[in-house]
């Protein structure tokens, strides 16, 4: 494709809005997603799933299934005999109760949709016929669908060995001075916030194609996963195979957003069936299963007390956090993922002297949860930002002013939460966002609107997000399986082109482009000569995949370091061939090495590669005949922190209660921007998902545990008419820990949006006396508040 690509010869690929290298295949339908792969002799699989939320399995009768035309096999847990998935934290029993997730449910089902048997047939239609013929009988037990039900004294136990349905219970911080701060405070904010269960909802559902190669004694599992190496480990353990007998590859992936960064059970059942049948088996999750049985997230309740001085300085927070994690712990993150994230990072961008927090994960008879873009940060940021707005109202301060008085402005800042924040632009982003809204006249418009009986509100949210979680940061959380580092290998061929590997896994973040930019920058090589390989456990030494906005920071740093090392090798060879010292040469930024004291003497990479591979007798004595370099990278200490301010203007329709976003401004700082188009795309897409959480999406359950959102008719994903145009301004506070100075940009949008939108809605509702503290905000709630205010003939009095 033609396009105004950046001129790499000037030596600056970083920061250039180069065209995506992924696009030519994706816009022409030539992408290769999982379901596009066909293998000879391929069979199809689907799952018999629990129809009740909670029950003892009395009998699994697959006799009729096996008689259905086109069905090749059907297996229950007993037939496959696989090892269970157990996700562990390195914490004492009083803090953490591990749970066991069988690949197929055996004696008990714990949520409606839990897989009980796998059906394999000649085509997906016959699979459905087979699933319908299955007969499963249960002794039905009471469902556990709410916090109140889970924690009740006589609650039915989801896991018999987890008393009170509490899987994790930690008091992470209880610093001196909390009680005193509340006693001395003239302004205490009491707040209960709730966020509904949400689905990360990648457009491409989960899936796997497994095939057993008898000649090679190797299982090949092609799957949609953000973490292929971790899938390999669980597959090998559950199937009792050495890891060398399992290869996991990932083709193009249609989104993940965290849902695909844990190991699912269906992939393992599919692999076991393929091995047993000696034929390739494909499973593509349908949307109904994806909505009801895919990993979910976000169902949290916070009870928060916050103390302020009369000047609006935050002095203490005392929080109680309960996260409903559903039926099972996910691998490798466990049910600790949401509560531990929330407890550790809740103070966000604010200076906080005293902090007490208790965080619990509870089990329920609902689909299990996994990390979802932002992981708890949308929720605790919402709490912090609501607290700021409520205190501002109470103290008669402007919402921006109270933030200004509390933001961290001196770095590095060591927080009460024992985290060192790396430098950011917390105040600068807030001030720029406010300036933007003021310059555009939104404040005046809000005034005018109130006079005209329209309902406009303005809301802000400020946040930072830890992005480059290195292994030290994850170890602090006491994970037994500790993510954090990444490895990259780079290899140059005879044409002077390179193939570079990364253990990260692209699923829309443009890795093929931004990683190539990093390599092109480091080697002084044209972008067209760089190719990225990801998602293959045999080709990539090891990798921790893509989550927690870690790709550019950690994966990108490994890639850049490997490229630097290859550059050094090229310089050594070039110096030798030019007959000069290595200190007297350097990469010339245009695919070659130049002699410093005589720039007319230069060697192109092609010439060096020619010597390295075809005439290796000319190489320096100690230099091996290969142009390959490997590098590992880990972010030290507490990691990197991106930050942003979101500013939103909303209007509520007094007739329907519907909230429309009139203006959305994002000022973000993810350190050095490798590709502004990619960063803006990440911000906007994230914000759309944050707006979805604020106003639309909700996985609810009937009292018997039946999920009520099994299709897009009930699960409201916002479309182009609900998501506004969004402006994105970049501030750049370079990161000292990463090779490029980048900090990570995947999750920020999702983190900031719910708080900003909710604050804007509450701003327009302030005169009604009603404030909404749960997401999503339903039109009915807005309508009721507005109607109530109208009845009482209260004037609109926005600040």
């Amino acid at each position, binding site marked *: 494709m033609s396009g105004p690509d950046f001129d790499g010869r000037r030596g600056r690929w970083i920061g250039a809005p180069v065209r995506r290298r992924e696009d030519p295949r994706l816009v*022409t339908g030539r992408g290769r997603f999982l379901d596009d792969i066909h293998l000879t002799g391929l069979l199809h699989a689907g799952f018999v799933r629990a129809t009740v939320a909670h029950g003892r399995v009395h009998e699994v009768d697959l006799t009729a299934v096996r008689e259905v035309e086109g069905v090749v096999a059907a297996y229950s847990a007993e037939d496959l005999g696989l090892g269970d998935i157990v996700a562990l934290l390195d914490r004492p029993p009083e803090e953490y109760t591990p749970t066991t997730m069988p690949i197929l449910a055996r004696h008990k089902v714990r949520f409606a949709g839990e897989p009980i048997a796998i059906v394999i047939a000649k085509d997906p239609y016959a699979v459905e016929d087979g699933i319908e013929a299955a007969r499963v009988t249960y002794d039905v037990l009471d469902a556990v669908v709410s916090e109140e039900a889970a924690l009740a004294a006589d609650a039915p136990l989801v896991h018999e060995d987890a008393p009170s349905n509490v899987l994790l219970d930690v008091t992470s911080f209880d610093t001196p001075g909390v009680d005193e701060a509340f006693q001395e405070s003239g302004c205490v904010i009491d707040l209960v916030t709730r966020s509904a269960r949400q689905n990360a909802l990648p457009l491409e559902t989960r899936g796997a194609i497994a095939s057993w190669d008898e000649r090679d004694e190797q299982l090949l599992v092609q799957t949609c996963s953000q973490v292929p190496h971790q899938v390999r480990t669980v597959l090998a353990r559950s199937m009792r195979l050495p890891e060398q007998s399992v290869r996991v590859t990932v083709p193009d992936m249609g989104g993940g957003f965290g849902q695909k960064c844990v190991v699912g059970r269906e992939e393992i059942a599919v692999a076991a069936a393929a091995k047993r049948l000696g034929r390739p088996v494909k499973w593509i999750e349908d949307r109904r299963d994806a909505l009801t049985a895919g990993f979910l997230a976000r169902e949290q309740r916070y009870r928060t007390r916050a103390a302020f001085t009369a000047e609006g300085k935050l002095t203490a927070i005392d929080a109680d956090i309960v996260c409903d994690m559903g039926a099972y712990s996910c691998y490798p993150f466990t049910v600790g993922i949401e509560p531990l994230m929330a407890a550790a990072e809740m103070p966000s961008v604010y200076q906080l002297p005293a902090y007490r927090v208790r965080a619990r994960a509870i089990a329920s008879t609902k689909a299990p949860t996994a990390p979802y873009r932002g992981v708890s940060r949308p929720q605790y940021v919402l709490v912090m930002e609501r607290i700021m707005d409520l205190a501002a109202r109470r103290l008669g301060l402007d919402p921006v002013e109270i933030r200004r008085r509390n933001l961290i402005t001196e770095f590095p800042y060591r927080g009460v939460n024992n985290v060192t924040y790396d430098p950011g632009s917390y105040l600068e982003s807030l001030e720029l966002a406010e300036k933007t809204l003021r310059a555009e006249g939104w404040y005046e418009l809000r005034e005018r609107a109130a006079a005209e009986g329209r309902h406009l509100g303005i809301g802000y949210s400020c946040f930072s997000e830890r992005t480059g979680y290195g292994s030290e940061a994850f170890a602090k959380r006491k994970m037994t399986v500790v993510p954090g580092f990444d490895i990259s290998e780079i290899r140059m061929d005879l044409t002077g082109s390179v193939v570079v590997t990364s253990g990260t896994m692209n699923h829309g973040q443009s890795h093929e482009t931004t990683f190539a930019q990093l390599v092109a920058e480091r080697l002084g090589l044209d972008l067209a000569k760089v190719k990225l390989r990801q998602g293959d456990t045999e080709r990539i030494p090891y990798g921790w995949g893509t989550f927690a906005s870690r790709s550019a920071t950690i994966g990108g740093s490994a890639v850049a370091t490997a490229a630097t090392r290859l550059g050094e090798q090229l310089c050594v060879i070039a110096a030798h061939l030019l007959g000069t010292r290595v200190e007297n040469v350097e990469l010339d930024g245009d695919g070659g090495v130049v002699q410093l004291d005589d720039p007319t003497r230069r060697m192109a990479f092609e010439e060096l590669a020619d010597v390295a591979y075809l005439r290796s007798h000319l190489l320096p004595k100690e230099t091996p005949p290969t142009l390959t370099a490997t590098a590992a990278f880990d972010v030290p200490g507490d990691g990197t922190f991106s930050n942003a301010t979101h500013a939103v203007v909303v209007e509520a329709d007094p007739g329907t209660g519907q909230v429309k976003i009139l203006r959305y401004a994002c000022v973000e700082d993810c350190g050095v921007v490798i590709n502004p188009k990619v960063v803006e795309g990440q911000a906007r897409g994230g914000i759309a998902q944050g707006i979805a959480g604020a106003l639309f999406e909700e996985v609810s359950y009937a009292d018997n545990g039946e999920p009520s959102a099994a299709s897009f008719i009930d699960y409201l994903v916002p479309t*182009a008419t609900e998501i506004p145009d969004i402006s994105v301004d970049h501030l750049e506070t370079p990161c000292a820990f990463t090779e490029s100075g980048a900090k990570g940009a995947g999750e920020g949008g999702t983190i900031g949006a719910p708080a900003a939108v909710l604050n804007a809605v509450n701003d327009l509702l302030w005169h009604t006396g009603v404030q909404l503290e749960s997401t999503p905000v339903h039109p009915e709630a807005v309508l009721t508040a507005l109607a109530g205010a109208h009845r009482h003939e209260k004037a609109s009095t926005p600040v």
Partner: protein
Amino acid sequence: MSDKHLIVLTVNGIDHELLVEARWTLLDVLRHQVELTGTHVGCEHGVCGACTILVDEEPVRACLVYAVQAEGHAIRTVESLGTPTEPNDLQEAFSARHGLQCGFCTPGFLMLAEGFLTQRPTPSREEIREAVSANLCRCTGYQTIVDAIEDTARRRAGQTDPEPEAVR
């Protein structure tokens, strides 16, 4: 369920003789019988639009049509638009505007836009946004998709220098 029908589907100008079950959707037959996998499966209940194709130049959800119903109609899939080395102007605009991330929903949006622009060659931005709301994208937040379609409409109308619309 083994009753099969011999049908001829005209896809991207080529006739395909196919043996299909009456219950097979056009989507499945296009992907697995005709082996044009550019059209994607998103929800199979007509909401997400990832499977949007053109039937007689009208955007249609391929998941809501049975293959046997499509006989005698002109079907166009994303593969008809352009190739990686020679994309059409709309595909070019999607790339130029960063109108895709994971790319899974993209063929559906492209076919939706192709059909829409044929029917409304000079739409307003609001009309584009309204049309685009037929499909779901989980990555982009839609703005850059609207941008890409707007650019294409302007170019096709002979306005060579599209001005990006201000955010408000």
